[in-house]
């Protein structure tokens, strides 16, 4: 039997396969290049980048929970200049697409990052309006319809590369937010970011995270993510990158059946440094076993 065609297209960008890294869980690839061949990945999404360096939240920032973890890193990063100088030149040595996750506290801050990236050699921008740790005016961009549309519009105007908007699951109606960012000009949507959560040490009777609350990721959130990808895929026409608890190829296929074109691997990288490659091999095995020739066929094959 022929090898299945793994290639996908997101907003005009050709990825050699659908496996992408989830922002914040893969650094800028350098660390994992010791364990896997980065050339094998469809794309690398780097950690959130802001216009100037951010210090992030206090420690502890990590708490393991049943089947997942909470983090309250607070988007610590060295800023866009450092990213371009140190990380981008490293990533350009590999044959994979580069997606830069951008963060900000205000519309202007987001736009400054997009502007600075406009003449660089990156492939796509992922607008992170969904980090639960940073807010503007008490409402984060990702949970307010008007704000979500406004920020997408503003960044879309500034950005030279196709724009992915990453949605927060911390909303009652994910479909209306998805429609708002598409109206604002989003070329693709990625989801889900982490679910807001909390854990308490019952012996000290203190929250484990210094920040008290944090974002939940890992297999524990997968059913929520699958449901949201399914609902959004039915409602909008732009391609979707699905994520949330993907540990294996089978998990990734579940996202595709729900309507995702691309899939991103997050926390699994911490459990298993070769997770991305294992997921890729798992998808290919599934396609061979079930006679799928390409990713689009899987996406259209959900039986209701």
């Amino acid at each position, binding site marked *: 039997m022929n090898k299945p065609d793994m290639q996908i297209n997101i907003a005009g960008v050709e990825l050699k396969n659908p496996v992408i890294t989830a922002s914040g869980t893969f*650094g800028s690839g350098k660390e994992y290049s010791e364990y896997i061949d980065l050339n094998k990945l469809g794309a690398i999404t780097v950690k959130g980048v802001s216009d100037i360096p951010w210090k992030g939240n206090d420690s502890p920032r990590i708490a393991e929970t049943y089947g997942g973890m909470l983090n309250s890193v607070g988007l610590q990063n060295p800023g866009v200049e450092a990213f371009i100088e140190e990380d981008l030149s490293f990533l350009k040595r590999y044959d994979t697409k580069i997606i830069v996750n951008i963060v900000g506290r205000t519309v202007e801050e987001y736009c400054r990052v997009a502007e600075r990236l406009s003449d660089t050699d990156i492939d796509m921008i992922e607008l992170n309006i969904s980090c639960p740790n940073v807010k503007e005016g008490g409402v984060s961009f990702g949970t307010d319809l008007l704000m979500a549309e406004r920020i997408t519009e503003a960044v879309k105007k500034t950005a030279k590369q196709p724009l992915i908007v990453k949605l927060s699951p911390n909303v009652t109606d994910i479909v209306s937010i998805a429609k708002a960012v598409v109206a604002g000009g989003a070329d693709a949507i990625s989801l889900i970011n982490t679910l807001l959560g909390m854990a308490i040490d019952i012996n000290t009777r203190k929250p484990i995270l210094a920040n008290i609350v944090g974002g939940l990721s890992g297999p524990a959130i997968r059913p929520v993510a699958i449901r949201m990808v399914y609902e959004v895929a039915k409602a909008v026409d732009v391609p979707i990158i699905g994520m949330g608890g993907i540990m294996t190829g089978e998990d990734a296929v579940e996202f595709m059946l729900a309507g995702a074109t691309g899939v991103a691997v997050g926390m699994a990288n911490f459990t298993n440094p070769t997770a991305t490659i294992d997921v890729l091999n798992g998808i290919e095995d599934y396609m061979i076993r079930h006679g799928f020739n390409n990713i689009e066929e899987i996406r259209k094959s959900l039986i209701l």
Partner: protein
Amino acid sequence: MKKLYYPIIIEQNQIARGTFSMKLQCNEIAETALPGQFVNLYCREGEMLLPRPISICETDREKGILTLVYAVVGKGTESFSRLKKGDTIKVLGPLGDGFKIDESIKTHILIGGGIGVPPLVELAKHLKGEIYAFLGFAESPILVEELESYGAKVFVATDDGSAGFKGNVIELFKNKNITGGMIYGCGPKPMLKAVGKWAEDMGIKAQISMEERMACGIGVCVGCVCKIKKKEEEDWQNRKVCTDGPVFWSEEVIWDE
């Protein structure tokens, strides 16, 4: 080189209440590990997804054996304690930046608290000159003979006075009036803070091994930071314990609260 390994457990013993020593046949890590470095130990159980960072206690380069000593404090370490001789375990390492060894220093002072003692064993093995080790425990002392076998003169303090000096390790150390060219500390934060303060008062350099909750252990998640002063600036930055540390100069660490 740091890599994933699946070594066999060749020995697992309880050495004190709730404290275990595990020996792994892992030639690659045993041959390259440096004092103060750690490994990520992965749990088998499905719901525990993050690795547990455990310090390298001792290595035997010839035989390729790695010794880890850990306390059972939760589900992950409990699951390690149930593993038997002959079982395999997933290990990533060696990780982190360990203790710096300055050959010109003649007298070394090691200060360990509880489950912070293990990395001091491998350290003592690498040090030349006089070594004094001050160890504090809640109850039963561990690894005293191992430290002595590498030439350390060991002083013990216990909270309940059941062994050695009754009280904390810092008091014991101050009572002894011993000084040296370098201090190395590993243990709970209040102890490390006191070590740093004493070192500063005495004008001696101190290296301390910090502990923070980790996810990746390899510098990716930025989950394990502590506050470190910037050189020649008033400002500080969050540095990663897993890759910039775990060992830092005490004078650079900024303590919370």
